[in-house]
């Protein structure tokens, strides 16, 4: 068990290192000279070179990578080119905003997705199952901005129930903030529903087919008891893993949703950093996304291990 966890953490660190290298060098591949884009096309060549030197982008790549990654490890994320101020506080504020939106989406989607998957599995092969699966698949591949527009038109333009922007006025109460976040959460819910429902469905079908469920049924337990006590508990294991891996997609969705609803979150921050060629901000933002994803999958793996007695006692692995 301890050995497995140690190995798992080690692998996560190796993956994060590779990720940091990819992000850093992809950032350097981006054409366009940072000093030139800050100073504008009319600035003198000497001024551009002086600013390049001041920003440190004229040093060898390996040196730049080393100072960048050691800075990151010490919580120093550099200065944003576009705002001329440290990246860290901006990133922190954006992350807090995104966390609110993501949390709301997850609170809605986890029970809904699991319910959908379990209902589909209990009716496997019947029309209900096909409808849930096809709806899930379609909702997952309809871009967030498309479903976002549909809900804006319905709830904001026609019914006028909810605001079309996500940013509540400063100092709003919790309930007002929640009201503003309701519409943006819906597209995220759409995208995630299909994945979570599909995993819950597969897990439930597998559990329904297992020997222990047959035993439980044969010893005369009522179907409801069998489902609650034996099927659900086992079918939720793979679902935990998929929820964690979906954090990646969730953040991808945030880029689009936060742009559409004009919300100051990490997706919006990364998007504006990319369009403005603000490398320090872009690299820090994308690396943060990667770290969040790795931590989420790590937690999921640990949870799965703890919940599965065979893995816990080391019978497997």
């Amino acid at each position: 068990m301890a050995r497995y966890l140690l190995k798992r953490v080690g692998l996560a660190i190796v993956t994060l290192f590779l990720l940091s290298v990819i992000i850093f060098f992809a950032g350097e591949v981006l054409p366009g000279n940072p000093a030139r884009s800050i100073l504008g096309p009319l600035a003198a060549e000497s001024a551009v070179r002086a600013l390049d030197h001041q920003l440190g982008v004229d040093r060898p790549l390996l040196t730049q990578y080393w100072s960048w990654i050691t800075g990151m490890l010490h919580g120093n994320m550099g200065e944003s080119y576009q705002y001329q101020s440290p990246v860290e506080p901006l990133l922190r504020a954006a992350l807090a905003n995104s966390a609110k939106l993501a949390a709301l989406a997850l609170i809605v989607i986890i029970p809904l997705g699991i319910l959908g998957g379990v209902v589909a599995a209990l009716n496997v092969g019947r029309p209900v199952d096909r409808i849930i699966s096809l709806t899930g698949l379609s909702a997952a591949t309809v871009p967030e901005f498309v479903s976002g527009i549909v809900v804006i038109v319905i709830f904001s333009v026609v019914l006028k129930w909810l605001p079309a922007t996500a940013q509540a006025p400063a100092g709003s109460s919790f309930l007002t903030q929640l009201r503003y976040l309701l519409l943006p959460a819906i597209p995220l819910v759409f995208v995630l529903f299909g994945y979570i429902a599909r995993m819950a469905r597969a897990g439930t079908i597998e559990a329904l087919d297992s020997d222990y469920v047959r035993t439980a049924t044969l010893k005369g337990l009522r179907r409801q008891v069998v489902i609650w006590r034996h099927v659900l508990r086992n079918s939720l294991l793979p679902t935990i893993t998929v929820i964690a891996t979906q954090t990646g997609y969730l953040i991808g969705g945030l880029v689009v949703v936060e742009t559409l609803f004009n919300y100051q979150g990490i997706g919006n921050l990364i998007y504006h950093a990319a369009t403005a060629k603000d490398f320090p901000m872009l690299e820090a933002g994308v690396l943060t996304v990667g770290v969040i994803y790795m931590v989420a999958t790590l937690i999921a793996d640990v949870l799965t291990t703890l919940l599965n007695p065979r893995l816990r006692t080391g019978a497997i692995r």
Partner: protein
Amino acid sequence: MTEIVAMPAGAVTSEAEKRGQPVWRLLLGRPTFDVGVAILLFWIICAIFGESIAPHNPLAQQLLGTNKPPSAQHWFGTDSLGRDVLSRVITGSRSILIIAPLATLLGTVLGTALGLALGYLRGIVDTVVSRVVEAVLALPAIIIIFLFVVALGVSTLNQVLIIGFIFTPLIARTVRSAVQVEGQLDYVPAARLLGERSGRMMFVEILPNVLPTVLVEFTVRLGYAIFAVATLAFLGFGVQVSTPNWGTDISASYVLLGAGYWWETLFPALAIASLIIGINLVADSIEQVLAG
């Protein structure tokens, strides 16, 4: 020896063989497949003959008739430059229907080759490549895609290449596990004992047996490719020309939603949704028929 080679091939096309019918007939018998194909054909026809079908010139501006709601003359209304929204929706499918299939094809070809190699050869190459793939997958695909689009510029070719390359490891991963399953069947060691070389083993013996997996992967990925192309256009990374484009049109008009001009944004959005749903219906049917 031919008997051994023939057996697993029979196991793959299970449902088709069981009922003794060709795959295409099984597909056509499914209502979901027929509806999906009908939607796809509709948009393909619009992409090819759009200008002849459209009631107005999609580029013609009418500065006295801007932001007009749907009417008998303009069924979908007019946009902020007074252009007919219906005509722009009809002709707007073209770029997405060029970029998405080409990108998916590129990703499928490269991904299948890579997956075959990884699944068959295994060893150190497999371990190293899998690690790098996992590192890339730790990022949402859309963030990687727009990172590279910003880096390389937004031409049609660049979008095809970038989306194709991003799909490559994803498809390779699926093909790799299918190949590993095949590797455990008797015909693989049998063919190896006959002295077949690796290249022939991968492409002549194993590839035909993982083709159903590849086909399913292609149709599913096509849906995601359309998702990606549309999203890029919405984020302002579409190919910047005056030709109609659903995503670009939406990104230009969604700020007017607050003013109540919903038709300029909603109709292209519904067009994207219908195209994606059509592809999903087709993909789902193919998966059901081939996986049995």
